Structure formats: structure tokens, C-alpha cells
């Protein structure tokens, strides 16, 4: 990367080039500040008393009581548990289902493969969110309304996942598969021993995308859940924030930070790996 950065440097290093660089730096930082502003504000509001939510004074007193109040005001522990179960369940199912399907599509054309692939790709455009009215009807008929399974079911077979893994599997050299076959491995064993390990970056990239998507998903869980026992963090947060009595940004900020902390921390720790997995996965 540094080699590339060096190669991008203007050779003449003239005044114009320096001006451009200066301008770009300013623009980049301006954008950066705008982009991080909500998070910075959330931190500000969360660690100061309510009265300072709209007043920015350097010496405002600090407090952690907003976190305590938010934690106290809603069963966040339960919501976290629900989200955790949900995200794990969806990811697990997606990995298995998409691997199998992608493997079928990647290896060779078979009778009906083109039509089926087109049917799968249809879901890229028609996300389950769009079909929430009908899907609600289905869940009701299945008796699954207000269950965590119902939040996850529509997303488990993911066209995005199938598409990505199929691309990754296609890049596996045929010779490897043939060698494994000569050794007497079964089809599933070949998938497990040859294809899956080679597609690891794709799995990581896709897994991270899936987790952050479902951690933050809102509309469908809002519709399908009724009780504390099933609500994920996002819906819990909205129920918590919509009151008759006006908005208290201090407590909402504290709740926001709490609810996004796990993802935020994970991202801070793994951000380099995150980008690299996307790069290696060839998602570009």
C-alpha cells in the first residue's frame, strides 16, 4: 500500500499539486468529521447530565448515570440475548444453506441450473423486507409470530451468500477436486475439505456483513415480534425511545452506545482484517 501511495505522489510536487493535496485532505477530514459526528455526539450526551444534551461546555460535569438509567429502563440484557441468538442462528443457517447451494451451482451446469440460478438471484432485488405483509401472513399460518425463528427464517437462504460463495468456489482449480476424487473422497467431503477452506476470506467477509445487517435490522423484527422474550435490541430501543413524554437524548445516547458497543468494538479490533477479507474474497 505504501508503495502504491508513493507511486501516486505527484512527480513535480508543484504548487498546484500541493494545493490539490491540501484541498483533498481538508475535504476528507470534513467528511470524516461529519461521518463520526453522531457517534461523538452520542458519547457527549451519554456522559453528561441531561441538561447538557444541547449545550456544549468544556467543563460540563461528567456522569455515568445515563447508562445506569438506560440499563434500568429496559431489559437490555434480554434484548442482547435475543439479538445474539438471532444473529447466530441466521449466520449458521446461511453458511450451511448457501454453501450447499453455491456448491451445486459452481461445479457444473445441470438440468435446470440456469433457471434456478435466476430464481435465486431474484432475491437480490426482492429482499424479504419488501414482502413483509405476505411473510407476516405466512408466519401467522405457521404459528410462528413472535418467535426469534420467525425473524430469521426469511433471511436464511440468502441470494447474496449463494452468489458470493459460487464466485469463490468457481475459482477453485478443477485439478484439486479431481485429485481429491482420485483419493476416494465423497462429494460432501470434497466440499468440506477442498472448497470450504479455500473460500475462507469470502466466508469471513460475508459473515461480517450478515452479522452487522441482522444486528441492525429493524422493520421486519418490529412487525413480527410482540414481547420482551423475542425483541432484538433495535426494536427494544425503538420501543424504549418512543414515549409520550418527549425525548431524553442523554438516555437515548447511552442506550445507543450500549446497543451498538459489541459491533463497534469488534470492528475497531478487526478493521484491518475486515477490509482484507473483502479484498481476498474478491468482493469488489
Amino acid at each position: 500500500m505504501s508503495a502504491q501511495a508513493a507511486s501516486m505522489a505527484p512527480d513535480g510536487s508543484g504548487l498546484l499539486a500541493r494545493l490539490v493535496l491540501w484541498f483533498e485532505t481538508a475535504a476528507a477530514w470534513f467528511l470524516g468529521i461529519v461521518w463520526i459526528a453522531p457517534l461523538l455526539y452520542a458519547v457527549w450526551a451519554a456522559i453528561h447530565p441531561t441538561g447538557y444534551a444541547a449545550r456544549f461546555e468544556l467543563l460540563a460535569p461528567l456522569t455515568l448515570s445515563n447508562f445506569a438509567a438506560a440499563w434500568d429502563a429496559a431489559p437490555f440484557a434480554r434484548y442482547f440475548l435475543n439479538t445474539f441468538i438471532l444473529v447466530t442462528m441466521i449466520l449458521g443457517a446461511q453458511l450451511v444453506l448457501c454453501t450447499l447451494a453455491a456448491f451445486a451451482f459452481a461445479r457444473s451446469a445441470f438440468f435446470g441450473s440456469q433457471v434456478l440460478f435466476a430464481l435465486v438471484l431474484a432475491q437480490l432485488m426482492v429482499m424479504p423486507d419488501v414482502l413483509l405483509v405476505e411473510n407476516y401472513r405466512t408466519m401467522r399460518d405457521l404459528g410462528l409470530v413472535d418467535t426469534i425463528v420467525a425473524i430469521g427464517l426469511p433471511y436464511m437462504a440468502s441470494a447474496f451468500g449463494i452468489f458470493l460463495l459460487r464466485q469463490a468456489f468457481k475459482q477453485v482449480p478443477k485439478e484439486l477436486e479431481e485429485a481429491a476424487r482420485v483419493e476416494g473422497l465423497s462429494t460432501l467431503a470434497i466440499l468440506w475439505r477442498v472448497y470450504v477452506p479455500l473460500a475462507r476470506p469470502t466466508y469471513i467477509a460475508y459473515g461480517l456483513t450478515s452479522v452487522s445487517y441482522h444486528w441492525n435490522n429493524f422493520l421486519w423484527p418490529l412487525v413480527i415480534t410482540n414481547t420482551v422474550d423475542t425483541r432484538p435490541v433495535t426494536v427494544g430501543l425503538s420501543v424504549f425511545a418512543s414515549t409520550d413524554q418527549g425525548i431524553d437524548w442523554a438516555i437515548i445516547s447511552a442506550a445507543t452506545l450500549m446497543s451498538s458497543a459489541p459491533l463497534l468494538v469488534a470492528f475497531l479490533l478487526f478493521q484491518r482484517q475486515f477490509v482484507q477479507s473483502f479484498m481476498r474474497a474478491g468482493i469488489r
Partner: protein
Amino acid sequence: MRSRATVHAWLLLTPALVLLAAFTHWPAVATIWHSLFTTPRGNRPARFIGLENYADLLDDPIFWQSLWNNAIYAAATIPLSIVIALAMALWVNARIPGRTALRMAYFTPTVLPMIAVANLWLFFYTPDYGLLDQVLRGLFGFGATNWIGTPETALGAMIVVAVWKEAGFFMIFYLAALQAIPPSLHEAAIVEGASRARIFWRVTLPLLGPTTLFILVNAVINAFRLIDHVVVMTRGGPDNATSLLLFYIYQAGFRFWDTALASTLTVVLLLILAALAAIQFLVLEKRVHYR
């Protein structure tokens, strides 16, 4: 042998296909069927009325307004989020001081739940003592603006939030693509005496083509899907100025319990998505080899 491979393939596909059929294909068809009936209420069952729901829809000003709003929303969020994502990726990939911190800043919206940040944006947009007004007053001496309480600015305010949410996520894809471009290509271009702008237009951008298409597909979907902030911040108001199609569907289906209207609206949305998909896949066919 060939038939055995086919059987294998079908076996592998069955679990995914069953779920796809149950929660994508079947509901898409069922919604067309249900759009031909009245809404059952209390002890009055649903009654077949043919295309009457569609006729009603044509007379529904909120539908037209939502359609128009969504068109503006899409026309603004799609190009804006893509261009900003590209700019971010180029900066973070090149020689801007502090690029690690910037990359983090750009990406944070992706991990923050929209539903939560919508409440924070509500503060930014609050007239007078909201952050935006405080900054504008400090810098330019502007007065108070009721950003989400005025029809002229409300939709724009929603667009800004959506772009803010999306751009960082798209940036990651561009960044991965940029880092995969062999440095030798740039070096060769520099040796040939090409300017930076020329390198960007002639070398970098064409190589980002497939990524752009991939991001475009995502951006188009999000333009019709991403309404969490509307639910929290404006509930479609003022006077439906921020009502988007999916929001209207949600409102019809789960606020008015008018399943007939909701199904009819869903069919319209599906038609729009199908048309957009057709356009995209025609372009995709030309640009990238799919199989």
C-alpha cells in the same frame, strides 16, 4: 452420470430453494393474488373485486406522493452514496494524513443501528439548539431552520441520513477493489507521463467497473428498502413529504390493517424492482462475465 450429478445438485439446492420459495417466490405471487381482494374486517370476509384496488390506487394522492418521493430519494441517494464512497476509498487508500482514523470514521455508520442514530439525527435537525443549526449559526450566522418540520427540507434531511448510513459500507468494497489493482499499472502509466486525473479516468475507474455495478445493485435496493429512519424521525410527515413506498406499505399493512392496499402497493413496488433488475442485468450481461 450426468443425471446423477443433476440429482446431487438438486439435493444440495433443496434446503435453500425451499426457503427461497417460501419467503420470496410464494409471497411475491401471493401478494398479486391478495391484491385482487378486499380487506377482511371483523366478520366481513375478503371478497374478490378484480382490479378495483388498482383503480383506487390511481386515485390515491398519498400513493402518487410516495412514488414521487421515492423517485427523488432514489435519484439522490444512489449517485450520492456511490460517489462519496468512491471518494472515501480513494482518500483512505492514498496518502491522506490520518487515513486509519478516517477509515474508521467513514465506516462507523455501518455498525450503528439506524433506528438508534435516527434519534440522534433528530437532535441534529432540531430547530435552533440542534447541532446543525448551532453550527450554521456559528459559521454563517444563519437563523433557526425547522429541517424535518418543513416539507421542502424534510425529504432532503432523510436523504442525507441515508447517504451517511450507506457510503461507508460501499467504501469497503471500493477499497478492497483499489487495493487489488496491481501497482505496476500505475507505475507504467506514470512512466508514460500520464497525469493523476488521467490515470484515474483511464486506469482506475475502468478497473472499478464491476465493483461499481455490484454497489449499484445494493444502492438501488436500499433506495427502496432503507426506511428505518423515516419510521422514527418523521413517520412520513409533514403532510406525507417523506412518505416512501415501503413506508406506505408498512403504514397500510400494520397501521391501517388494510391488507388489500398493502398488497396492491407491494405489487407496484415489485414491478418497479423487476424493471430495475431487468435494466441492471442487461448492463451486467455486457460488462461482466457471469458464468
